[in-house]
Each structure stands twice: as C-alpha cells, then as structure tokens.
C-alpha cells in the first residue's frame, strides 16, 4: 500500500465525493468527508517522510511506462504542497460542520461535501502529477467544484462572483491548454521530465516562447497575480466562510506551485530567466501588487473583502520570491506559501466565527467583540500579527527570507517595498482590532463566544502560526529542500 500512496492521496477523496452525495445525510456526508481528508493528510505526511528519506518517488499509473502512460512524480516541492493542501482540508472539514449547517439549507449540505472533496482531490492531483495535460484536467476538476462552492454563498452576489470567476478561470485554463498544446506540437510528449529533455533543442523556435507566454498568463490568472486578480475579491467575500478559508489557503497556492513547476522543471531556469527574462515582468508586478493591494485593503469596509485584497498583496510576496529566481528567493516563496495558508486560514475562520454569531463581517459589526468573543478575536489578532510579520509568528520567517533574498542580489529597493507592505498590513489589521477592542459601543445583546466546533479548528491554525514561527527549523528545512528540488541544485 505504501508504494501506492502517490495515487491514493488523490483517488480516495475522488471516490469519497460521490459517496458523500449518495448517502445524502448531512452528518454522514460530513463523516465521509472527514474520513477522506484525514486519510489524505496521513498519506501526505507519509509522502513527505518518504521523499525526505529516499528522494523523488515516481509512480506509473496502471503500470504503463512513463512517456506513454501518465506518471506521478512526487519530489520535495510537490510533497510540500500536498501536505499544505491536505492539512488545510483536514482543518476545514471539522470547522465546516457547524459553519455550513448555519449558512446552508440542509438539502445542500451533502452536495457541499461532494464539491469540497472534488476540489480537494483536484488540487492534490495538480501537485502530484508529472504529466502536463493531466495538470489541466485536475485544474478543471478543482476549478469547477470551486465555482460551485463559491456560488453556495448566502448573498446573491455570490452567484455573480462565481460567474465572474468561471469566465476568467476558464479563459486562464484555456490559455494553459494552448500552451501545453504548443509544447506538444514541438516535442511530441506531455511527460514533464521528457518535455524538459526535449525543449532545449527547439527553444530557438518562435513556438516555444509563445507556449511559455500562454502558460504564464494562464497560470498567473489562476493565482490572481496583479492585474489578473479581478475575480478574487468578490469570490472570497461572498463564498460561505468555510469555503473562503479553504480556497484562500489552497487554490492560489497550488497555482503558484504550477508556476514553479512549469518555469523550473519543464522550461528550466536558464530558459525562463535568461531567454524569456521572466524576472523583469514578475518582480515589478509583484511589487505593484504588494503596494496597491495593501492600500486598497485599507479602504475596505467588509473584513472578508479586506482580507481578500490582502491575499492579492501576499501573493505578490510569493511571486516576488519566484521572480528573484535564486535559491533563497524560491525558498522564501515556498515558505510564504505555507505560512500564508496558515495565517489566512486562521483569519478567515475567525471571520466565520463572527458570521456565525453576529451575522455580518462589516467592520462596524466587530464592535465590542474583543470582550464578547475573546477567543475568536484573539485568533484574529494572532493571524493579523502573522500577516504583518511580527517576530515569533510564521509571517516573520518568510519575510525575513524574502528580504535576505532581495539583499543578496543587491536589490535594496525591493526589500524596502517588502517592509512598506508590512507597515500597510499594520494599518488594515489595526482597523479591525481597534473597533473590536477599543471601540466605545458594546457588542449587540446575546452575542456569545463561538461554539467549540468552530473555535478548535480556528485555534489549531492560529497556534500553528505561533508554533512554526518559534520552531522554524522544520518548515524552512522542507522548503529549502523543495527549492533545491525545483532548481535542480544538489543539497
């Protein structure tokens, strides 16, 4: 069984999805989803341990040898992403039980878990596959189910948000298919390792730079890099709380992983950076994203929307690390991938607790919650501090690496922008904290602390923010190994 882990981590949630729909009882469907997510997390931990001990795992689907059959390749980078996605899945499902029962009608709950499991297996699939076209298939599995999940929001604007995401997401996915098709026409293979071998011979043609461009635009649309982020704020704001927590923590992260996989493994760093001069486009866009989106976040009146704009800014940090292209930069990007999943997971879950008790996430609705819901708001503060990058939280670790990576290449203005971004984060986090703790008006009558079913997952993530901020060794070690695997540097 152990040797089948790479495929089982995807297949178990995929099979659990129709089961959750067939049993059609909210509680039993929830149990099925929980079982599948816990299994995926266990498999992910097993994969990480095996990769760190033995190196790259190659798995041939149905025993068809690699270039003909589809191959799953798990190296340190994919194992790292699998772990992040599975861990977030296992944290969100226990949370979803109370949150979703509150926000959805009972007949929709089993179908919610079906869509959730499909989304999870799609995201995990993107991370483990070693076949370029397979990436597209998994991407569409995860995206289509994500559109459904977003459309489940209570507000009718969730529908238009989902529609907008569907249009932009499909355009992005189609761009990715065009890119993959152009690569296939030049090389005759879809296997990533094979592509990497054959691409240099045809890199001089016009087709390959065009393929590269289509892939870059398509993937950056999916990861919401400024200025292709337009679908993100509405989708995050109007989706059900549990969905926002899950999608914010995983979907864009997996897209960042796709970017890394295509840039480094398939095209190779030499082509991406020296020939296509990727850094010249990624670094400016990332810097603009950090500055403008943090500024826009300050002026938001809805806390979920505020956090959504902050997510676009934080994606800027990840892309900045990739744009720097050095080992340290990519390590910083991968670290921020993990850290941002932890902090946004905790923050959006805290907002879900507020929705549960207060019914609104506008800033004025936070009034007096510091006293009425002390644990929820404390989790928000921990997540907020992590977002700012205060020492002893995870946010500090990734920003520290990012600043080092920028200074290593003598780009001190970049380091300054990273720090200014943190200062802007102070402003928008403070806006919420001020109303919750220091406002005059008390919380509305009858507002109590959120139930334990919501608080425990929220605090698990908030505590992880602190734990990995203090004991940074484990995460930095795995992220460094993942960056080495991507850049092809031997440890």
């Amino acid at each position, binding site marked *: 069984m152990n040797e089948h882990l790479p495929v089982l981590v995807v297949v178990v949630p995929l099979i659990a999805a129709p089961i959750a729909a067939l049993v059609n009882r909210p509680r039993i469907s929830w149990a099925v989803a929980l079982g599948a997510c816990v299994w995926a997390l266990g498999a992910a931990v097993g994969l990480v341990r095996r990769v760190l001990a033995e190196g790259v795992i190659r798995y041939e689907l149905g025993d068809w040898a690699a270039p003909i059959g589809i191959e799953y390749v798990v190296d340190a980078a994919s194992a790292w992403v699998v772990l992040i996605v599975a861990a977030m899945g296992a944290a969100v499902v226990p949370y979803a039980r109370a949150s979703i029962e509150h926000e959805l009608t009972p007949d929709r709950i089993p179908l919610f878990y079906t869509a959730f499991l499909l989304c999870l297996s799609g995201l995990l699939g993107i991370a483990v596959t070693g076949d370029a*076209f397979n990436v*597209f*298939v998994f991407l*569409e599995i995860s995206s*289509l189910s994500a*559109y*459904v999940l977003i*459309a489940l929001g209570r507000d*009718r*604007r969730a*529908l*238009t948000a*989902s*529609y907008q995401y*569907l*249009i932009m997401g*499909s*355009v992005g*996915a*189609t761009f990715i*298919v*065009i890119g993959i*098709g152009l690569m*296939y*026409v030049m090389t005759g293979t*879809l296997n990533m390792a094979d592509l990497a071998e054959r691409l240099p011979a045809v890199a001089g043609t016009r087709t390959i730079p065009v393929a590269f461009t289509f892939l870059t635009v398509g993937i950056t649309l999916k990861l919401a890099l400024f200025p292709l982020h337009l679908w993100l704020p509405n989708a995050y704001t109007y989706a059900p709380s549990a969905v926002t927590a899950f999608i914010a923590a995983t979907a864009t992260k997996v897209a960042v992983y796709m970017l890394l996989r295509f840039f480094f493994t398939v095209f190779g760093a030499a082509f991406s950076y020296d020939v296509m001069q990727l850094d010249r486009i990624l670094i400016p866009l990332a810097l603009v994203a950090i500055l403008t989106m943090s500024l826009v976040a300050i002026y938001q009146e809805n806390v979920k929307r505020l956090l959504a704009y902050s997510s676009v800014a934080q994606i800027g940090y990840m892309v900045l690390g990739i744009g720097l292209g050095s080992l340290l930069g990519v390590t910083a990007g991968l670290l921020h991938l993990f850290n941002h999943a932890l902090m946004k997971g905790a923050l959006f879950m805290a907002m879900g607790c507020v929705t549960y008790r207060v019914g609104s996430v506008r800033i004025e609705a936070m009034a007096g919650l510091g006293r009425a819901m002390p644990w929820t708001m404390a989790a928000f503060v921990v997540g907020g501090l992590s977002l700012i990058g205060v020492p002893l939280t995870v946010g500090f670790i990734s920003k520290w690496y990012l600043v080092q990576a920028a200074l290593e290449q003598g780009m001190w203005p970049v380091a300054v922008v990273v720090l200014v971004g943190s200062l802007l984060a102070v402003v928008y986090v403070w806006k919420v904290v001020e109303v919750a703790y220091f406002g005059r008006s008390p919380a509305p009558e009858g507002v109590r602390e959120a139930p334990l079913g919501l608080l425990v997952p929220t605090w698990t993530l908030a505590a992880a923010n602190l734990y990995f901020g203090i004991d940074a060794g484990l995460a930095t070690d795995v992220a460094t190994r993942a960056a080495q695997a991507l850049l092809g540097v031997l440890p």
Partner: protein
Amino acid sequence: MTALGLINYWAVIFLMMVGFYTLIARGNLVKKLIGLTLFQTSVFILYISMGKITGGTAPILMESAEPVVYSNPIPHVLILTAIVVGVATMALGLSLVVRIKEAYGTIEEDEIRDTSL
C-alpha cells in the same frame, strides 16, 4: 506550406479572437458564455489540426506490406477530455445564469451592477 495549407490555423485564430472579443465586450451573461464556447472550440480545432498528418489514415493497426502512415491519435484523445470539460463548464455557467436571473431578474451585466449597489 502555402497560406491555404494553414487554413485550419487561420480558422483557429479567427474563432479565438471572435470568441474572446464576445467574452469581453458583451454585457449579456449568455452571450459571454457563447463567446467562451467559441474560444474553447478554437483550441479544440488547434489540437485536432496538429494531430493530422498529410496522407495519414485513421490510427487503426492495419496489416499491409508497405508501411502505413497514421494520424497521431493522442491530440484527438486529449481534446475529447477538453470537450468534456467544456461541456461541464457550459452546464455550470448556464445554471449560474439561471440562478442569477432568479435572484436579480435580469442577465444584463450593467443592470445587475445597478441593483447590487
């Protein structure tokens, strides 16, 4: 190859641009989806064209004395997957439009924006 020999690819570019333009410029949600379909269909034709080999026959193994040229079946099979994805996208998109019509009473983008404010 002559310009006429590339006619498939010209068709791809034409359809792609028509679809993309419709997608961006139209305010009607159903028309946007029609644009998206055209856009995706153009990519199907791109894949199918690249699998065709001049003089190639259908990829069914034949026993014959002289060597047989087959068309490459892989892009065709790949695009079968993409067509399924396209159908699913369309079904989801249209059902969202139905729900939007129920919630807002209109499927014109600007009118939806006005009622949202």
